[in-house]
């Protein structure tokens, strides 16, 4: 909310400032419905041609506990959920105390004065931040009646925010109606009453009111969803019709979505007895003729690794989703971390090369799911799609995909063939092709798929020569894929002092750090790498333009003093100028943190 320049004031009323973006943090308890307010704000931004990004924390307790939802709305480009909030909406004492330091100096805090007494606020806070006390709980009860003090106060608070930021009320009314229309029309009515009461509350004491400049994504139909939703729908668009999984946070949303949606398309998703059964079932369905999906988060991926190794050996197409969380072991189930890169790339016994792709935004989750399916089919290989807790749960608005063009038919072809050798060493493209059971082979020689080293028909062999040839075949097809991968584009000038390399959800904050550094006169650029394994070729040529290459990732520097992706890049390009910028506090990158680390490493 930096450009508060164009302000207007009318007799006795607060000033109205034109802004191009705002970061709003809502803090309460997990049962208060604060995610719902955040969701409404995000959806409104999507419908107002704006960009939006959210960030949330949820306690890993079964019910209750402090929770926050941060939403950053911008009329222009939004790359991260924002370092500091412009506004804090605090429902309780503890929300106020715990989150006041996330507010920028001079920012506004709206607090529920039924919970936090104005006299309890330390004087030094009053000089540092602007305070607005509103008896949210009692005014909500007044507006909608009843004794359910916690029910409806989120919607009341949404009304307050709508007044504060001059949000589009008819659009919000419609969103509320869409959300609450269902069994009982009274519920929608009550929600509207709560909203209107909040909106009509006299904010005469507010220090400042705001108005967003028009959004820049003019004329663009936008959809608003979370990363997990985008990934699930991407798999459906790709033509996946079978999946299997086991519940684990934060992956479960995807399996719930696929279980609910796939039957409409003639497909199914199976909840299995364990992680191993789910990967095995998905592989079985893939052999049945149509690439299937399984997924999990860290601990579950560890359990699946033996079966993924089989898929590498048998060269079976498969998509495995890993929604990373803090590890090792049960770790920090509801926090963000990018520490599964090693298990995704190397997690398997024996030499088991596989494809690893990491989407960076919610929109990218949708398209990467389709890519994963197509790479799995084209190269007959398992593909691991690595996202993280942050990207999985955050909400973004993006251009509505052209579904008619994108949605593909990958139904299997069982036409009879004259003869078939899946592991044909002389195949012109060097890639294994499977025929599904049900396919007649006129020669009468049928293939077997196996985890044993095998000959061209899949029958076991102990031949050293064949093991060498087949190992090379499994490696070379992915080198062929590497040659087809697009070379990533440098964000900023192609030469300079520092190149920040990011993967996954670190892209946004890294690019924002580049903007900030360049504004301060530093020669910093960024390179985002989506294809983790195999890596695209010729990255070293890009590195040549920079004195330093810092790999920004959310994991520990480890025993070798460099993060997991940093280690992978060092193995490929043994260059000491590649160093790591890592952290593992379970939170997303703040732009400031990246800038500080650059300063420390280049001092």
């Amino acid at each position, binding site marked *: 909310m930096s450009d508060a320049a164009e302000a207007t004031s009318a007799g006795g009323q607060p000033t109205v400032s034109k802004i191009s973006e705002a970061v709003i943090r809502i803090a309460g308890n997990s049962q208060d419905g604060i995610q719902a307010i955040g969701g409404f704000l995000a959806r409104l931004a999507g419908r107002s041609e704006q960009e939006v990004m959210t960030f949330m924390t949820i306690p890993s307790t079964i019910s209750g506990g402090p929770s926050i939802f941060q939403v950053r709305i911008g009329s222009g480009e939004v790359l991260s959920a924002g370092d500091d909030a412009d506004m804090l909406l605090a429902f309780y004492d503890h929300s106020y105390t715990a989150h006041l330091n996330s507010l920028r100096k001079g920012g506004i805090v709206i607090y529920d004065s039924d919970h936090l007494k104005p006299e309890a606020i330390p004087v030094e806070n009053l000089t540092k931040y602007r305070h607005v006390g509103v008896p949210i709980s009692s005014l909500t009860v007044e507006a909608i009646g009843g004794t359910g003090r916690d029910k409806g106060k989120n919607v009341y608070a949404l009304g307050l925010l709508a007044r504060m930021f001059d949000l589009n009320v008819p659009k919000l009314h419609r969103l509320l109606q869409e959300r609450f229309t269902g069994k009982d029309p009274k519920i929608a009515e009550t929600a509207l009453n709560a909203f209107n009461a909040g909106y009509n509350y006299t904010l005469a004491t507010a220090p400042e009111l705001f108005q967003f400049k028009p959004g820049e994504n003019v004329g663009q139909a936008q959809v608003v969803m979370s990363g997990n939703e985008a990934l699930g729908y991407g798999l459906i668009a790709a033509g996946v019709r079978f999946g299997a999984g086991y519940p684990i946070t934060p992956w479960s949303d995807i399996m719930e979505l696929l279980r609910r949606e796939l039957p409409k398309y003639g497909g199914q998703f199976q909840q299995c007895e364990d992680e191993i059964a789910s990967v095995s*079932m998905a592989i079985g369905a*893939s052999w049945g003729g149509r690439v299937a999906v399984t997924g999990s988060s860290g601990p579950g991926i560890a359990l699946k690794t033996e079966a993924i190794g089989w898929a590498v050996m048998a060269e079976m197409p498969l998509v495995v989703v890993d929604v990373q969380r803090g590890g090792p072991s049960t770790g920090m189930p509801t926090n963000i971390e990018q520490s599964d890169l090693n298990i995704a790339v190397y997690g398997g016994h024996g030499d088991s090369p596989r494809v690893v792709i990491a989407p960076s935004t919610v929109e990218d989750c949708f398209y990467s799911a389709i890519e994963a399916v197509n*790479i799995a089919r084209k190269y007959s290989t398992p593909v691991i799609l690595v996202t993280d807790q942050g990207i999985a749960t955050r909400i973004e608005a993006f*251009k509505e995909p052209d579904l008619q063009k994108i949605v593909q038919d990958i139904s299997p072809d069982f036409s009879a063939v004259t*003869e078939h050798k899946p592991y044909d060493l002389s195949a012109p493209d060097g890639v294994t092709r499977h025929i*599904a059971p049900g396919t007649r082979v006129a020669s009468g020689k049928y293939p077997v798929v196996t985890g044993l080293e095998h000959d061209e028909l899949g029958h076991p062999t102990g031949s050293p020569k064949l093991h060498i040839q087949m190992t090379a075949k499994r490696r070379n097809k992915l080198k062929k894929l590497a040659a087809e991968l697009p070379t990533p584009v440098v964000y900023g000038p192609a030469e300079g002092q520092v190149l920040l390399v990011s993967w996954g959800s670190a892209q946004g904050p890294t690019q924002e750090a580049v903007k900030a550094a360049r504004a301060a006169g530093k020669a910093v650029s960024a390179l985002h790498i989506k294809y983790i394994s195999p890596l695209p070729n010729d990255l070293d040529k890009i590195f040549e333009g920079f004195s330093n290459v810092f790999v920004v990732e959310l994991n520990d520097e480890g025993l070798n003093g460099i993060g997991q992706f940093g280690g992978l890049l060092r193995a490929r390009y043994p260059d000491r100028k590649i160093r790591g910028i890592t952290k593992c506090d379970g939170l997303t990158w703040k732009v400031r943190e990246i800038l500080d680390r650059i300063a420390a490493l280049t001092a």
Partner: protein
Amino acid sequence: MSEMAFPFAVLPRGINTNATPVAPLTEADRKPLTKKEVSADHPTWCPGCGDFSVLALYFKLIEKRRMHHEKITTVAGIGCSSRFPYFVQAHGAHFIHGRALPFASGVSLSRPDLHVFVFGGDGDAFSIGGNHFTHTARKNVKLTYVVMDNNVYGLTKNQTSPTSPLGYKSKTDAWGSKDRPVNPIKQAICAGATFVARSSSTNPNHVLAMMEQAMDHDGFSFVQILSECVEFYPGAFDNANPRKGGVFAEVPKEHDVTDEYASYRLAEDLSPGKFGVIYKTTRPTKNANEGQIIADHQAKVAGLEPWQILKKNFDRMK
């Protein structure tokens, strides 16, 4: 944000480019497959192993039931008996240890046109894969699971198996096993299997009859076939072999196979126990239930292309 660069755009449906298409066969062109046509690699089993008999009877079943070559689907895990798919000239999968059932379930559920046969041993079924045995049975996934039970780990050369009897001396229990063995029949009944049968590799006609009934059962069918390991546990099932002085006692005619408790009691003593169909009931299969869910959901979007169904979801997210 703009639409992403999209290097791996739509691929054609059939990408098994190594294969040359051939005209389909009419039903009239079909002849019963001969043993020669359905046998592949020479089995790696030891001479005298009971598994040879099971393989021969699988061939006989294929011939007798005039199964189409391409529809024969054989899946196995790891173990001596799990080498099975290599010896059958048909579509086969040799999966990892203990996980043949979930793999086969993936095939069965996504390909209702196929009947999947799963072959394995007692280690695969009741030790490493015990969890899957329970859940595949309870969900009543339509497939046939033939467990060639030799009461010992043979491929790894004589360790105690989950069905080794008390006192069995192996390399891991030189003083004799003290762990209560699994009773596969009781396990199957408790887990919710809808077809449970027993046979012995020494009685070929009986094996064939059991496999045939299992194949015809609409649901999860389980057949335990005693199959002697001549190398590490010779004589294990002599008491069920009349040629060795034992008794091959069939399930009494008066036994009600639909009576779960009577079947459980019938399985009390498996040394040598009774042979035949012990328990059989009908319950909706997982395959049928999923089919119904799909039919119900598709009725609501009848006439819409997949992209139009997805578009409806996206319209709600604007």
